[in-house]
């Protein structure tokens, strides 16, 4: 479970990116985070990943109390979540296979486990035949699927995706969302920041809207009235 309690976040330059945010996300939930550019959506995901720290309030995810988590523990927090970004962030000098395997190497997984798990996830994102390609030999949608596989391969509790469909065509966007939906059905918490009104409307999931650093609406079966 993730809980934000009166969370605020002020950047060192004085920008108040989040103000008094109260939010609870249960295990296994699917949540869209929407809002205008500069609203504070990315800041919210950065707080969850421990990339930035709350400057006020409390933020807990599972057993991690992020307002007082020591730097040394951040890698272990990250292993409980798979993260996906608009710009993919793959290792450009590693093959598709190696990119996915890397998430397992980092946690010291056995080679036999790596050999077993990577193909499963390659298959999940339908890239088995492109396992030996390098990222720059793939389309945007394919690269993002590699990123998804890497995020999922070490079996995290939740997936955090910040505009995962920002760099792919509408058809691929739909496919990626479908993939997230499937992942959610496996019991994982999924948090997706997006600008895609159409998709949000189609999926009828919980929608949290942020404006100027504050949560202005939180609807369950939702459609988005404030996107872009």
């Amino acid at each position, binding site marked *: 479970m993730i809980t934000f309690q009166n969370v605020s976040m002020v950047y060192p330059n004085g920008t108040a990116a989040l103000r008094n945010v109260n939010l609870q996300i249960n295990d296994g939930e699917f949540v869209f985070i929407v809002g205008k550019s500069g609203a504070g959506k990315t800041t919210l995901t950065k707080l969850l990943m421990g990339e930035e720290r709350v400057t006020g309030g409390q933020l807990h995810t599972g057993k991690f109390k992020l307002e007082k988590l020591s730097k040394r523990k951040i*890698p272990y927090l990250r292993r409980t979540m798979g993260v996906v970004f608009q710009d993919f962030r793959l290792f450009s000098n590693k093959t598709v296979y190696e990119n996915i395997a*890397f998430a397992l190497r*980092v946690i010291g997984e056995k080679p036999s486990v790596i050999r077993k798990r990577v193909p499963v996830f390659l298959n999940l994102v339908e890239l088995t035949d492109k396992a030996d390609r390098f990222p720059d030999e793939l389309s945007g949608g394919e690269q993002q699927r590699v990123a998804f596989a890497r995020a999922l391969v070490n079996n995290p509790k939740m997936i955090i995706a910040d505009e995962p469909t920002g760099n792919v065509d509408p058809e691929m966007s739909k496919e990626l969302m479908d993939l997230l939906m499937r992942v959610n059905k496996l019991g994982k918490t999924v948090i997706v920041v997006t600008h895609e009104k159409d998709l949000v409307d189609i999926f009828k999931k919980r929608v949290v809207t942020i404006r100027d650093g504050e949560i202005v609406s939180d609807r369950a079966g939702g459609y988005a009235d404030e996107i872009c």
Partner: protein
Amino acid sequence: MKFVRNFFYLLGQGIVGVFRNSVMSTASILVLVCCMLIVGTFGLVVKAINDNLQRVDTLNVIVAYINPAATDEDIQKMKKDIESYSTDITVEYVDKKTGLERLKEEMGSEIDLEMYLRDERLNPLPDTFEINFSSAEGAEALNNYINNLDNITDTRHKIGLVEKVNTASKGLMAIAVILMGVLLLVALFVIMNTIKLGVFARRDEIAVMRYVGATNTFIITPFLIEGIIIGTFSACLAYGIQYYLYTQVISDIVRSYGIGTIAPFGETAFVVGAGFLGIGLFAGIIASGISIKRYLSE
């Protein structure tokens, strides 16, 4: 098990790192090798000088000239007196005939001494005692004591020379230490840049590694290993070259100029090896540690 697995993976990454940046790695190794060789060569030369100093017995000798008027009895008594001064001295009586023969041997055909040898009365040399002492410490006092004996007219010694050579070899060592310091700084600088380039080239990779939950140790280790490989390889290379320099070049010079004897390399091999490895590891670890630290504290 997990640790071992990680270690081998990271070892591989470190080796890859060395070759990824082979020009800079080569530069690092060259500077380090120079640094080690200068220290090693100076050290070995100074050691050879000291060894020879100790072996050259003429340095630890006082020659005392006996008054020609002294009787055999006087001489016997004096010998006992000097011998009783200390346990670690030996006293040898060299009469003037023996003295002249020794001189002839030393001089060879340079001067014609035949005339003096033919007629005992023409021999200008005095009878002498040759007093050997083992340690330069207290030699000055011993010399004074002998000089003040009745029937000793004068003494000759090279006690001061030992000190002079000692000062000279200390000077040599000081130069070596300063050179080593400067070169070590250069080596640190070059290795630091080598590894910084590696870190810089991989900064995006490092950022992504963080996202998938890599610990600092996991991120740093390949760079540390890169530094350790550079340091160790340099030490091995320098050791090989030093061996050659010592057994071929230095020994040859010493032997062909008859400066003295030189100890076999094996006697100091361990110290040289350990010293080089120490310098290499120190430089490698410090340099890579510093280069990577900045990127991790972000």
